[in-house]
């Protein structure tokens, strides 16, 4: 076991743990935002740079600071390491810059984007960005493309986190190029399209942090914050059948996987559960899904007095 401190809070973790995972063990505000890293996707991380932190002491053996900010998602923690996240003005400043870069070519079409309300980029810019934009240049544009009849790709919104690429890579051993071209003309390519046949392809919608990959069966049906997310399960031959059904009245508007408090899918669900079972009688409802207090999905529902952490969107009670 190794011991390190992040923003002056000590934590003990196993060797090989990354700084980000150590911070997640502490929880709360010391957890750096992660737009590309996904613990369930091998090879992910290192790309978006939102998780940059400052290492003021490399380890007990080597007390020197690291010369540059490092990506906490892909830097292993060391015994005696001293890390600064929100206590470092340099990190806060750099992160503002990263948010600015991520938004630079983003169309900001939240008013017509299905992801609005559950978008990591919205949360990121709200929590870590600046209020104004300094750019006045043209934004790059791509046509909207269908990836099969169930998923739509809005490449304009993509932040090239590669999560969908790694998801597709895990679903098949056939290597086809996931990203075409390079620089700011890079786009999600054929790889994904060829994976539409796969039983689990729909998970690319859930891993996508923005509205680049969306569920065509849910397109423009409702704002997510008007829906009631309920934990539900069904007897499924393909996956564990544990999902969230998003309801309005007695109708199921969409089905998604369950996400943990870091926004990661708990268990990938199959396309049958996701797309083919939209009748309430298909599902056994466990109860309301817990939603983070900060989320707009919890808006208009009752709020707690003191820091409630997570609230039940229906009853307004702490879970």
């Amino acid at each position, binding site marked *: 076991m190794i011991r390190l401190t992040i923003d002056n809070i000590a934590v003990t973790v196993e060797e090989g743990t990354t700084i980000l995972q150590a911070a997640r063990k502490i929880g709360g505000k010391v957890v750096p935002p992660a737009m590309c890293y996904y613990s369930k996707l091998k090879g992910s991380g290192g790309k978006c*740079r939102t998780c940059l932190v400052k290492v003021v002491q490399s380890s007990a053996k080597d007390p020197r600071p690291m010369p540059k900010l490092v990506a906490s998602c892909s830097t292993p923690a060391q015994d005696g390491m001293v890390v600064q996240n929100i206590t470092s003005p340099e990190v806060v400043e750099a992160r503002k810059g990263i948010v600015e*870069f991520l938004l*630079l070519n983003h169309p900001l079409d939240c008013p017509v984007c299905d992801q609005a309300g559950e978008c990591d980029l919205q949360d990121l810019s709200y929590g870590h960005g600046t209020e104004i934009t300094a750019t006045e240049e043209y934004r790059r544009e791509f046509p909207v493309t269908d990836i099969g009849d169930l998923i739509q790709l809005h490449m304009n919104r993509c932040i090239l986190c590669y999560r969908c690429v790694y998801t597709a890579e895990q679903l098949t051993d056939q*290597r086809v190029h996931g*990203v075409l071209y390079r620089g700011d003309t890079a786009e999600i390519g054929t790889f994904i399209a060829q994976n539409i046949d796969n039983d689990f392809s729909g998970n690319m919608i859930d891993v996508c942090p923005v509205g680049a990959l969306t569920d065509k069966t849910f397109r423009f049906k409702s704002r997510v914050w008007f829906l009631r997310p309920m934990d539900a399960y069904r007897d499924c031959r393909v996956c564990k059948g544990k999902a969230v059904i998003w309801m309005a009245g007695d109708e199921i508007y969409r089905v998604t996987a369950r996400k943990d408090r870091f926004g990661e899918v708990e268990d990938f669900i199959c396309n049958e559960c996701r797309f083919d079972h939209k009748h309430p009688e298909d599902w056994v409802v466990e109860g309301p899904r817990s939603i983070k207090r900060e989320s707009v999905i919890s808006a208009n529902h009752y709020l707690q007095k003191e820091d409630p952490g997570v609230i039940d969107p229906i009853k307004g009670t702490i879970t």
Partner: protein
Amino acid sequence: MGRAILLNGIEIPGIRNFTTYRSHGGYSAVEKALREMTPAQVAAEVTRSGLRGRGGAGFPTGLKWSFLDKKSDKPRYLICNADESEPGTFKDRFLMEHLPHRLIEGLIIASYALGVKTCYIYIRGEFKYLVGILEKAIGEAHRYGFVGENIAQTPFSLEIYVHPGAGAYICGEETALLESLEGKRGNPRIKPPFPAFKGLYGCPTVVNNVETIATVGPIITMGGEAYAAIGKGKSTGTKLISACGNIKKPGVYEIELGLPVEEFIFGEEYCGGIAGNKSLKAVIPGGSSVPILPADLILNTASGTPRLMSYESLAEGEFTSGSMLGSGGFIVLNEEACIVRNTWNLTRFYHHESCGQCSPCREGTGWMEKILYRLEHGEGKMSDIDLLERISKNIEGNTICPLGDAAAWPVASAIRHFRDEFEAHVREGKTFHATVGKETTN
């Protein structure tokens, strides 16, 4: 005085052919290393020589070799980085074109020292004409028993393959190179793990520049100590400099490190002074990525001592008043050169070559290019100059690979040393030549 170590024999007709090269002492370094020395002794000579990587970073070669994972039972690889795509740098292609056997000799000796049995030359896609030259040379070396089984009648065996890239600058970054060599998209890898532990196909790998490897033969011939006696301080030996821009004699020169910059620019033996008898305005001394320096700071350091062509001297003053030796691409600009236009042009290159993997470089390079385009075309604002500085600062140090830094430094240094010229562009509102004050037609 110029000193020919790497380019020794280049004037000999037919030196590109094995027999001519051999009859002028070629491959005797291989014989010496393989027959008279242990691999450890060869590596120790290279360490003693003080040789530093010629690909840009200047990392001590002996030290890099010592990092190779010795515990692993996987095969080891040596990769020769011949992707040379940095604007202003054209030394490796010159060496490979004229003295391909010097590179092959170095590859054999380095492979012997590292315990490598398979070696790849990853060559820039545009260097198609060199692929034939190298493959012919490797074929000759095969025929004469210097590549293949039992080299020079010793138990050592080695195969060398030439692998052309598809013309991406980023594939010169060592981990992007490895990805590309494995047949994947040329995205730089997240480090750690470093190639010394997990390189090509997850095996221990050393990546070295063409010039670095080509220097190994001469080091074995003359001995590490004798090599270290050449040059100045920690900048030992000789270095190829590709000089271009507004000089009388552009070309590739081999210099002893420590040569005064002034002598290099104005000496008859080297660049021969500024073309058209104009005056010197600025120099980008180490390939397009390194900071630009105005005439006074390239000739003398901020403390007033003459600037030398060495790793240390060019870096003196760090980024406030210094630059870097880099890969040795020496770009000279005269009084008529437009710094804004030049910076825009370089930024265009980095924007085009960014792999797009990480957000600061993917987005920042394009943003800077658009702003510089506006400035150069008379549509800039004063606030753009500060904005450019801020963008470059947000990219620098925050990216996966050094291409981000390489894109940020030229912009930051151009503004640092030539802010007045940027301001003049905004004020004049037209494409403007700072010194001559006339409009350009382009």
